[in-house]
């Protein structure tokens, strides 16, 4: 049996095939299950809401005092709040803070967690033990109570501050996971081989380690966004933080404070932010499912 | 020597067999329909004998072994045929309760050394008591005593083993514990699935000598399922060769190995390298054993790899599965081959 070697003709493409392949893969995977497409649409919708939404409304939303606690109707798609402000408007304007803080927190977590995890896994020995003790500590401390205690110190009016504080408290599990990934890569000889070739640490980290932990980190980034949204909305819901502008957590807090749960009036005011959170979570989960398949292709089940 | 084997063979041939498998067909459900893993097998295990069932992986021998306890796992099932065990009747028709008692109580099964056949969360001793309880054993002390005797007989520290968990025992120890479980309730039929696989040479020799010893001491009827002809040569009086779900040759071990009649058996033996002499004399059998899906539905299952068919091209080989027929060479010798009996096969 003769084998034929094909010589490449033409010029190599300027875009690296890997990068091109990723997006194409993603698109293919998204198309395969319609739910995933729905998921990415939902996420895109919320992103749009966060970015352009507040520009669509005036700085001070109109109050319609006579129409408080109204249910969904033609003029107010999601009803009104205790002051008569349109709930949909509140939802849209309140989304920016929530989303920005969550994204910053997730980014912070990922950067710190990955850095620590990589370093600990790479160095091992003394620094590793110390870092892992610290990580264990961070993981064990109950996050929410800690955030509450910290809230006495810092006011989270700025989404940046909120994001940073959240991120600093939550990097524990990412660090652990990245560290174990690094350790297993080490087992597989990548690192030793690269060092044997005389490649610098920076190169090893950038070219060998990062690409291998990147998929996990990317998916974790998205999931963390959902977790952080809960946390911040929850914090506002508890009413421990002073607020000067509206956001979803504030909406829930106000709804409960104004007795929605007691009387049942203005239900849509309470439920809208809740449903928004759930929807966004659903979208992200579906998107992560798609990414999971791109990075870990499984055999088709049919 | 020849006279002695002749005599025992005669005696064995006239007494009713301890296990009689008749026309057994076991099928597996696949996306392509129900395919046979074992086809029309007739196998007789005379009382008090050790029979070795030889075949490559995928030949159906393990499925056949499980069938002897009527324990073929889904998606397989026994389609036709009967399995008569002395004292029990047809296993296929036994009511569930009687079957449960028979398993362990009258027929014992020993797993491979590599498999974890014990509950990892309980000590051996506790599992022994569970066994006793399941079989309605009233004399628990007596049961433990028998177990201790068996374990000691096999060269183990009985007290320590009974107090151990599975992960604290080595592969060889686990296998011997498995043998103990199979025999402690005084079963009279013993089935061993690949008893020497995954063991080092010394442990292999140990296990085989244990099998021979307990078989003789207790007058068991034993079936050893293996892919290793050497094991059969060492320990079994009878040999049955299986290929593609079909029994192709049976008979007294020495006779069959010395003068194999079926082309497959011959090829198996030719493939064994000799310890002395020219190693290139050993010739592997070309091709691959069939899988469930590739077993030919018509004609002889061995046809495609058969040297005799390649040479003589008998039309029957294509159209019908050769029946298992006795050959004149000696009592108890059966071969399923169209080429045998029509003309003396060329060596």
């Amino acid at each position, binding site marked *: 049996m003769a084998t034929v070697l094909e010589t490449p003709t033409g010029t190599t493409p300027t875009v690296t095939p890997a990068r091109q392949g990723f997006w194409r893969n993603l698109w293919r995977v998204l198309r395969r299950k319609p739910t995933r497409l729905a998921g990415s649409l939902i996420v895109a919708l919320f992103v749009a809401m966060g970015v352009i939404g507040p520009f669509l409304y005036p700085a001070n939303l109109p109050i319609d005092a006579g129409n408080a606690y109204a249910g969904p109707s033609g003029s107010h798609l999601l009803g009104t709040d205790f002051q008569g402000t349109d709930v949909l408007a509140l939802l849209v304007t309140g989304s920016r803070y929530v989303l920005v803080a969550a994204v910053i927190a997730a980014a912070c977590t990922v950067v710190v967690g990955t850095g620590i995890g990589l370093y600990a896994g790479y160095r091992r020995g003394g620094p590793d033990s110390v870092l892992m003790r610290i990580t264990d*500590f961070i993981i*064990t*401390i*109950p996050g929410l*109570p800690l955030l*509450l*205690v910290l*809230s*006495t*110190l810092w006011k989270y009016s700025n989404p940046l501050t909120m994001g940073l504080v959240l991120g600093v408290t939550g990097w524990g599990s990412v660090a652990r996971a990245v560290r174990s990934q690094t350790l297993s890569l080490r087992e597989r000889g990548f690192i030793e081989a690269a060092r044997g070739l005389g490649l610098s640490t920076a190169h090893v980290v950038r070219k060998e380690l990062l690409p291998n932990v990147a998929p996990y980190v990317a998916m974790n980034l998205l999931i963390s966004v959902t977790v952080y949204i*809960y946390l911040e*909305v*929850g914090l506002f*819901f508890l*009413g*421990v933080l002073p607020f000067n502008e509206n956001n979803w957590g504030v909406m*829930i807090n106000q709804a*409960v404070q104004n007795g929605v*749960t*007691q009387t*049942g009036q203005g239900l849509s005011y*309470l*439920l809208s932010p*809740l449903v928004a*959170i*759930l929807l966004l979570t*659903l979208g992200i989960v579906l998107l992560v499912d798609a990414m999971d398949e791109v990075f870990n292709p499984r055999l088709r089940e049919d | 020597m020849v006279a002695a084997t002749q005599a025992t063979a005669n005696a064995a041939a006239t007494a009713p067999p301890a296990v009689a498998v008749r026309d057994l067909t076991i099928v597996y459900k696949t996306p392509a329909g129900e395919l046979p893993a074992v086809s029309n097998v007739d196998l007789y295990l005379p009382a008090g004998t050790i029979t070795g069932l030889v075949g490559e992986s995928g030949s159906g021998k393990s499925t056949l072994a*499980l069938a002897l*306890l009527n*324990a073929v*796992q889904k998606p397989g099932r026994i389609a036709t045929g009967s399995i008569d065990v002395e004292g029990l009747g047809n296993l296929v028709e036994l009511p569930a309760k009687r079957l*449960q*008692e*028979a*398993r*362990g109580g009258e027929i014992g*099964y020993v*797993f491979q050394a590599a*498999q*974890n*056949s*014990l*509950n*990892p*969360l*309980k*000590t051996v001793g506790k599992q022994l008591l*569970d*066994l006793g*309880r*399941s*079989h309605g054993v009233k004399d628990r002390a007596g049961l433990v005593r028998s177990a201790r005797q068996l374990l000691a007989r096999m060269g183990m520290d009985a007290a*320590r083993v009974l107090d151990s968990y599975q*992960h*604290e*025992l*080595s592969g060889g*120890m686990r296998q011997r514990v*498995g043998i103990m479980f*199979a025999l402690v309730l005084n079963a009279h039929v013993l089935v061993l699935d690949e008893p020497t696989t995954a063991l080092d040479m010394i442990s292999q020799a140990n296990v085989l000598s244990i099998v021979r010893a307990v078989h003789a001491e207790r007058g068991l009827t034993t079936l050893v399922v293996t892919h290793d002809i050497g094991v059969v040569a060492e320990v079994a009086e009878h040999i049955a060769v299986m290929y593609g779900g079909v029994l192709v040759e049976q008979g007294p071990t020495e006779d069959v190995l010395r003068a194999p009649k079926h082309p497959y058996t011959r090829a198996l033996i030719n493939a064994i390298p000799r310890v002395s002499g020219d190693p290139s004399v050993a010739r592997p059998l070309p091709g691959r054993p069939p899988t469930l899906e590739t077993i030919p539905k018509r004609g002889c299952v061995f046809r495609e790899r058969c040297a005799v068919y390649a040479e003589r091209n008998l039309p029957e080989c294509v159209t019908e599965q050769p029946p298992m027929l006795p050959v004149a060479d000696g009592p108890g010798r059966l071969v399923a081959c169209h080429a045998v009996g029509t003309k003396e096969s060329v060596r």
Partner: protein
Amino acid sequence: MRKLPLRLAGHLVRALVMIWVVATFTFFLIRQMPGDPVAAQYEQLVQQGMSPDGARNATQLTYGFMPTGSTWSQYTHYLWRLLHFDLGRSTQTLGVSASSEVLTGAKWTIGLVLAGILLSFAIGAVLGVIAATRRSSGTGDALTITGSLFHAIPQFVMALVLITVFTVIWPVFPTDGNVDILVDPGFNGPYIASLVSHATLPALAYALSMFGSYLLTMKSSVISVLGDDFVLAAELRGLTRGIRFRYIARNALLPLFTIFALTIGFMFGGAVFIEKAFNYPGMGVTLVNSIGHRDYSTMNATFLLITAAVIVANILADLLYTAIDPRVRRGGTAGA
């Protein structure tokens, strides 16, 4: 069994270190507050005419340690008082020490969290078995998806939804509090009934938010165990169905205990939400209220106790697992 005391000792050491770190953290945190409250109270009392000694004592009463002197001496004094469980007094509820303030709430929180964990464990385990045995049918899939879905819902959302459904739309359960104050406390029927009815929704909120992990873990565990060799071996040795079922069950349940520890931390963290939503007087509410009222000694005490509770629960979970799994208890192979 030799390893057990060693493990325990290791845990205790780590636990003590952690508590010490947390205590130190909160100590310095309070000092960092805008307008150092400790110094502030001291100053204020002195201004109001109290003698410096008197002011010092009064402040010490409030915070549990000496408000003057070098930071180091204050710190060591603080730790000393901590060992005596003296964390000062509550500034919102006068005359009550911070520690007792926290402890009154603690038993409610722990009770509720315990009920929630047990419920979610039980629900998750049972549904997990069903999901595993019916995995090729619609039921199995539906259960799996339901589990994942509920798991993704944040706890306060769950709590609020439950409140909305079961107290507003369909008033079946009481809306808040832990017990009807009109009923006499004690071991009598109406009191216990009232306790249970008030605890049902909150416990359910915990359970529904956590059962997903147990369900998914149990499902994969059962599927894996069913394929294990010893299951077939048990059948071939003629073991009865009852005994075989127990073999499978105990092996399948094992992985659930490993996630036990994870869920505990989660639960205690979420206690804040659920107690606030249901107005249940536990540690969570105490914490939130103390922050709102700037009652730092109580806040300190509560935070410490919550952390301690999580640590203790983790230790117990680990010991429990060690006791259950002989492979961890007695590792290694004996000689051939």
